[in-house]
């Protein structure tokens, strides 16, 4: 049962990811990317990371993708008039990414021999454990992330202004 669910979600994720790259219309690309994120959220649920699945859907499908959609509609790119690369460049792009895939798969062999140092626990992905880890071991990175977000907000506002005096 779980295995079939894994196959199904993986098939959906890979197919929608390919459609993101290959579809002509940018709006369709965004919508396929949202579907890819839902498939990945399904994988998170399968891996017992329920809280992360919820945050993933809220942040990616809810916030980031809406930002993409907003920019595409603002720039009026919803027609398939974009220039395309030459066939030679497209072929070499496919060859390059295929060779990268082969290298990744080859170099990641043997990773199944890892041994868990902690006993197996069902509640790793629950919000209680994550909060304990986040606010005990990662308190300083957590605060630095807030500064990063503040800086990104100021930078986005400054870049978005019409003219910088």
């Amino acid at each position: 049962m779980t295995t079939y669910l894994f196959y199904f979600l993986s098939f959906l994720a890979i197919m929608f990811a390919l459609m993101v790259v290959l579809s002509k219309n940018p709006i369709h690309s965004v919508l396929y990317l949202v579907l890819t994120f839902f498939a990945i959220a399904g994988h998170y649920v399968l891996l017992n990371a329920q809280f992360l699945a919820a945050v993933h859907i809220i942040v990616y499908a809810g916030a980031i993708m809406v930002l993409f959609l907003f920019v595409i509609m603002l720039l009026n790119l919803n027609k398939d008039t974009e220039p395309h690369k030459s066939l030679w460049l497209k072929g070499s792009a496919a060859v390059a990414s295929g060779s990268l895939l082969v290298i990744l798969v080859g170099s990641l062999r043997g990773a199944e021999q890892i041994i868990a140092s902690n006993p197996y626990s069902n509640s790793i992905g629950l919000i209680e454990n994550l909060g304990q880890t986040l606010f005990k071991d990662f308190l300083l990175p957590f605060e630095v992330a807030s500064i990063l977000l503040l800086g990104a907000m100021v930078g986005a506002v400054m870049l978005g202004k019409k003219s910088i005096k």
Partner: protein
Amino acid sequence: MSAIQTIPINWYLLLSAVLFSIGILGVLFRRNAIIIFMSIELMLNAVNLLLVAFSTYLSDSKGQVFVFFIMAVAAAEVAVGLAILMSVYRNSKSTDINILSKLKG
């Protein structure tokens, strides 16, 4: 119902590698800068998936906390990147990535 008893971690490694390669393909294949941004998001998500998989298989919640930080960085990156894209579009009326080759000077 849990994936960890029935599914070996190799499959998650393979799935993440495939998703990451599709992201690379998108960056190399397209000229629209927005699609390139989306492919970068796809690569970040491939890495996130692998972090969550290893976190579950090793019973260590630190990997999942890292995913939160990656999400924060991705949100910041998208906000600034799309703002840059807007100003590029305002100057050149196009999101073609080849426009930016004039930065070579």
